[in-house]
Structure formats: structure tokens, C-alpha cells
């Protein structure tokens, strides 16, 4: 049996990022990760809530989730979404470390009769895979190595920034040139192309509100993936996945390009390489730029 974590899926798991959630749940047991869903979890607020709701209410969103998690036990909280991780982890640290903050947050939580004192660890799924699982475990599970598949590992921002290099963040990789995703890709038997844009910004939430401001950022990422002849882009971040996949048509229209590069989650690669069902587990059918190339390359 694996190690148990309280799992916070986040809002995207129910919509645009559902294939991350499904594929992660599929591969987790094989990696020795036991996921117990967080009770009645709410939205983390992402990078958006703050401007409208205010700093403390934005933190209070995470604090409620943390209080719920604590009520479930003291196992580590795991989330696979970059924004959920950043907000929840940061709130947790502030409650633990920032003078006076715990009192304020608990005053707010008190309105619902809840409290929380900062003693949980909030961890990103990738960090857990690096630190608790290990690459060997991934390799052990590979039955259908993705030989010959060229993957551009696109980490994005918030998965690593600003916490990957901190002690609290598990100190599992660097901010600008992280290696973990390439390691994951290689562990599945695929080839990780040298991808300088690995931590370039896709525009984040601004891409959703004003795509015209951010198409250029997305184009740069696609440009390099194409230049490096990547078969697909793999990412850990739901918003990155969404932006880079969803706006390819708009980029093509704006710049006269013809990008058709599938954008998948690392967990989808793993599910395929682990020999699991390409649609039910790996959710390749949830990519609207066809990611069938992954299944095709997988050695049967």
C-alpha cells in the first residue's frame, strides 16, 4: 500500500483540466500514492481572486481548505494544480510563519466555527513524485516505453516558482531550468528535447481574459517546440495546458502559422507508458489537438 495524501483536485479538475485529474488518479496507485479526496474543497482563488476579494479573503479561501484537510488527519496535502498549490502552500506558510497572520485567519475561520494552526504540509504532486516516489519507481512501472517520442517538457511558472527551490517547497528543483519534468519524460522512455522555453510564461489568467495580450507569449513556446521537432508538449500545469492547446488556433490565425502540437500532462504520458487505457486512464481523447501520436509511439 502506498503513502496516503489528502488530495485537493481543484476546480480545473472538473472542467478544462479534467484529464490531469483522471490520469493522475489512474497512475497514483502504481506510484505508491494513495489519494484521499479533501472534503468539500473550495476554489483556491488562483491569481485572480485577490484583486476583487482582497488579500485576507483570498487567503481565507485556502485556509478553509486547510482547516478541512486538518480535520481529515495530519497527512500531507497534495495538489496537482500549480495555482492551487501556490495559493494553498503560501497561505499555509503565512499561517505558520507570518506574525499575526494566524490570528487574523482564525478570526475569519471562526465565522464558520473552524480553525487551523498551520501544521500541515502542502505539496505539489510533482514534488511528491520527485521526493517521495523517485524516478526508479516510474521506470519500474513502464511496460510500454514511449520510444522515439520527442517531448518538449513545458513546466510553466507556478509549479516551480516561487517555491520549488525553498525548503518548505521540498527544494526539489530550480526556478529557471528545472529538470524534474524532463526526468519524468525520460522515465517513460520518451526523449526530452532541450527546451529553453520550459519556464516561459503562457500568460496565465490574462490569456483567458484578454487573449490578444498573450498570444505572442504562447507563440514563442510553440515556435520552440516546433523548432525542436517535438511530437508533443507535456506540462504539469492545467492552465498552461489549456492556454497552449486552446489558443493554437488563435495563434495560427493571428500569425499565419500552422501549429498542431498536442499538449498533454506528464501523467497522461505515464498512463500510456504504464500500459493503461489510452482513453479511460490516459484521457488522450480529452485533448482536442489529437495526442494519438503518444499511443502510436508506445511500444506495445
Amino acid at each position, binding site marked *: 500500500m502506498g503513502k496516503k495524501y489528502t488530495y485537493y483536485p481543484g476546480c480545473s479538475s472538473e472542467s478544462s483540466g479534467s484529464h490531469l485529474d483522471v490520469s493522475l488518479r489512474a497512475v497514483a496507485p502504481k506510484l505508491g500514492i494513495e489519494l484521499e479526496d479533501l472534503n468539500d474543497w473550495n476554489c483556491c482563488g488562483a491569481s485572480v481572486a485577490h484583486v476583487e476579494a482582497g488579500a485576507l479573503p483570498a487567503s481565507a479561501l485556502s485556509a478553509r481548505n486547510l482547516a478541512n484537510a486538518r480535520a481529515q488527519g495530519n497527512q500531507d496535502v497534495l495538489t496537482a494544480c500549480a495555482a492551487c498549490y501556490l495559493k494553498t502552500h503560501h497561505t499555509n506558510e503565512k499561517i505558520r510563519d507570518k506574525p499575526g497572520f494566524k490570528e487574523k485567519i482564525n478570526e475569519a475561520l471562526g465565522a464558520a466555527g473552524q480553525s487551523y494552526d498551520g501544521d500541515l504540509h502542502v505539496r505539489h504532486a510533482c514534488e511528491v513524485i520527485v521526493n517521495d516516489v523517485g524516478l526508479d519507481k516510474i521506470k519500474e512501472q513502464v511496460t510500454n516505453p514511449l520510444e522515439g517520442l520527442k517531448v518538449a517538457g513545458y513546466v510553466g511558472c507556478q509549479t516551480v516558482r516561487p517555491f520549488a527551490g525553498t525548503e518548505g517547497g521540498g527544494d526539489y528543483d*530550480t*526556478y*529557471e*531550468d528545472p529538470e524534474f519534468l524532463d526526468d519524468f519524460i525520460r522515465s517513460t522512455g520518451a526523449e526530452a528535447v532541450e527546451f*529553453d522555453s520550459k519556464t516561459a510564461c503562457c500568460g496565465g489568467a490574462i490569456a483567458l481574459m484578454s487573449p490578444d495580450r498573450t498570444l505572442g507569449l504562447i507563440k514563442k513556446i510553440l515556435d520552440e517546440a516546433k523548432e525542436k521537432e517535438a511530437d508533443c508538449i507535456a506540462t504539469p500545469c492545467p492552465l498552461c495546458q489549456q492556454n497552449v492547446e486552446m489558443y493554437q488556433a488563435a495563434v495560427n490565425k493571428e500569425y499565419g502559422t500552422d501549429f498542431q502540437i498536442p499538449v498533454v500532462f506528464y501523467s497522461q504520458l505515464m498512463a500510456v507508458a504504464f500500459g493503461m487505457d489510452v482513453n479511460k486512464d490516459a484521457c488522450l481523447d480529452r485533448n482536442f489537438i489529437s495526442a494519438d501520436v503518444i499511443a502510436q509511439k508506445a511500444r506495445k
Partner: protein
Amino acid sequence: MAPNSQTILVVGGGIAGISAAIEAAEAGADVVLLERSPTLGGRVAGLNRYFPKLCHPTCGLEINYQRIKKNKNIKLFTMAQVATVEGQAGNYKVTVKTTPRHVNAKCTACGACSEAATSEIPNPFNYGLDTVKAAYLPHEMAFPMRYVIDGSVVGTPEGDAIKSSCKYDAVDLEEKEKTFDLTVGAIIWATGWKPYDAARIEPYSYSESPDIITNVEMERLAAHNGPTKGQIVRPSDGEPARKVALIQCAGSRDTNHLPYCSAICCLGSLKHAAFVRQQYDDSQVDIYYIDIRAHDKLEAFYQKVKADSGIHFIKSKPGSIVVGEDGRPTVCGEDTLGRDIYANAYDIVVLATGMEPCSAREYRVPVEVEMDDYGFIVPKTGNGSGIFSAGVAQGPNDVSTSVQTATAAALRAIQAVRG
């Protein structure tokens, strides 16, 4: 209690250690000088020129080496470092560990071993920018003037060939790590610095392009005895580097890296700007900086360099250096005086990496010393202690200040051993 030993041990044979040893010896003290590498000279031996006079460090080293050769008070051990220290002021028992050079004192520096050698190793003197035979003279100004045989050839046919090439029985492939003991009255740590690892400044892509180099590498490129015989060229293709960016505070003044200012890099880069401009009439040099710290008289050097029409100062800490589509390193950031966002491509980009004291990480001082948060050994004054520091072991100092601290440390060590 009278001190038992009047010998002063100087650890480190860079400019600070050399100066401390000679100054103490010329005042009559007995000195043992230890150097970890095969030759004296330390970091300065690898510099092309000094600021602000643009004169060659080897000139001063030659004088110092002559002083050592003529002074009977100095005993020199190379490839030696301190393993342990016990005791107190006036009576320290020091265990010294030596690593094998595989060449003994019979070496005449004739060079036959090097001719016999076939394999090449990265040249440590040139920071690995080129290679050198596995039997090599560290450089033409090496002191002692004696060859080194790299351990990689021990037990190989090449090693045997090297050994048999020597007519003077100077090759000793059997040589092992050794230790010996010294009794000394005072110790001066002059263990110097190493360049901050530029690869750790990830946005500056040091590992991504051969044309992104560090300031110490620039010294080697510009030096007549460097990998390019003094031609400042792009390491990637050997083409002249006519457009050059110098990036200040690459690591220094940065709480993510070295929180202190390394004090020498601004002047070093001003010097590098002059190197490039001296070599190519149609060159352009851009210096990216936060503050130009040309303190005291060195301000004159800054003003001189500033007066050159081919050198531009951009007050900006670049956000990143990326390798552009044409393969040229491109410096990206904001010009804080104009608020322009720039992306400028260069032939080479030179990172003015800071100084990290060897005592911080590389080398643990095996005796109780007061050390600050960065690993600099806090200088001691007055009586009571027999442990002193000099040069960059003490703080980020330039050559002149290192010599100053070394001379002061020599005096205080003399005070300690003479009670």
C-alpha cells in the same frame, strides 16, 4: 609562557599568502608557506592585467618569486594543505596533507615528459577553455618551475612512457598522498577565493552557450598565454568578439547568491572593456551595472573608460540572457534610466561573477576561527591569538588591499610568535 615556536605558517600561495610570507620573512621571521595547487600565484597568476594601470600581474610576481628564491627564511610546500590544527598561539601542531604531483624535486623542467605524454586533460590554468598534456608545466611563470603529471596516466602505458622519458629520475608514479607535521607559533589563512559558480545564476544561461563566459575566463581569453594567445574571440567559432556585453553583479549583491558586493568586479569589467577596445578599433562594449563601484583613486580609471566612445554604460541588472535564433547570446532587461525594454545580441557576454571565499564551502578551516555568514574569516587584532587571515579569506578585497591585509597579518603574526 614563552612561545615554543617562532615559525609562522601561511596557508595559501596566492598574492595574499605570498605577500604575507615574504613580508614576515624579510622582517626576519621563519615562514612555512603552503599552497594547495602545483604553483604559487593563485588567482592573480591567471589574470591578464591588473587595473588600473593595465600592467601584468606576472611583473609583480617575478619580483616576489625572486624575493622568495633569495630568502632563506621561507620554506615552500606546494600541493599541500592543512589537515588538522591542534594547540594554541605559540604552539600549534599542524598536520599537512600533500597530494601527489608525481614529479619530484629532481625535475629540471626540461619538458621531455610532456613530449612523451599523449593524452590531454582540461587545462586548469585556462579554466578548462583548452586542454593540456597529462604531463604539463602549469604555465610559463610557474613557481616552482616544475612539471605535474596528472593522476589519470598512473598505471597506464602512457604513464610508463612518461616515466622512461625523464632522464633525471624525476617522475614518481608511485607517489601517494602524504602527511607530515609542523609546529608553528602562528597561522595566517590566506586561502583566497573561487569564482562564484555562474551556472547557478540560471537566467544567465552560462551553461547554454560557449559565448557566455565569466570574467575570469575573459582574463584567460585576453592573456597572451591563454587558450587563444590573447585573441578575444567567440569560443563557439573563433570569430573576433567585437560586440561584447559585460554583466555586473552576476551573483554578487544578490541575496539569492552572494549577498555582499565582491568589490572588484566593476573595476575588472572596466578593464575588460579596455581589453576589447584595445584589440578591435571598431568594437562596442556595453556594461550592464547597478552601481559602478570604482572607489577611491580608482575613480580615475572609471572616468577614463567612460570617456571612450565605444563603451556604453547601461544601468540595469539584466533579467535574463537567452541564446537568440542566430545562436548569439542576447541580453534582456530594462534600462532603468530610460525604461526601455531591451534585447541586445552580442558576440560574447561576460558575467562578472563574484568572489566566494574558499573558506565558505570549498575548504573548511580546521581550527576555530571567527567566521561571518559568508565564510570570510574575521580578522583578529592585538595579542592573544595566533590565528590571522589575509586577502580574500578576510573579505572581498582587490589585489592592493589584499597585500595590505597580508602585510598587516604578517606583522600581527610576528607579534604573536615573538610574544
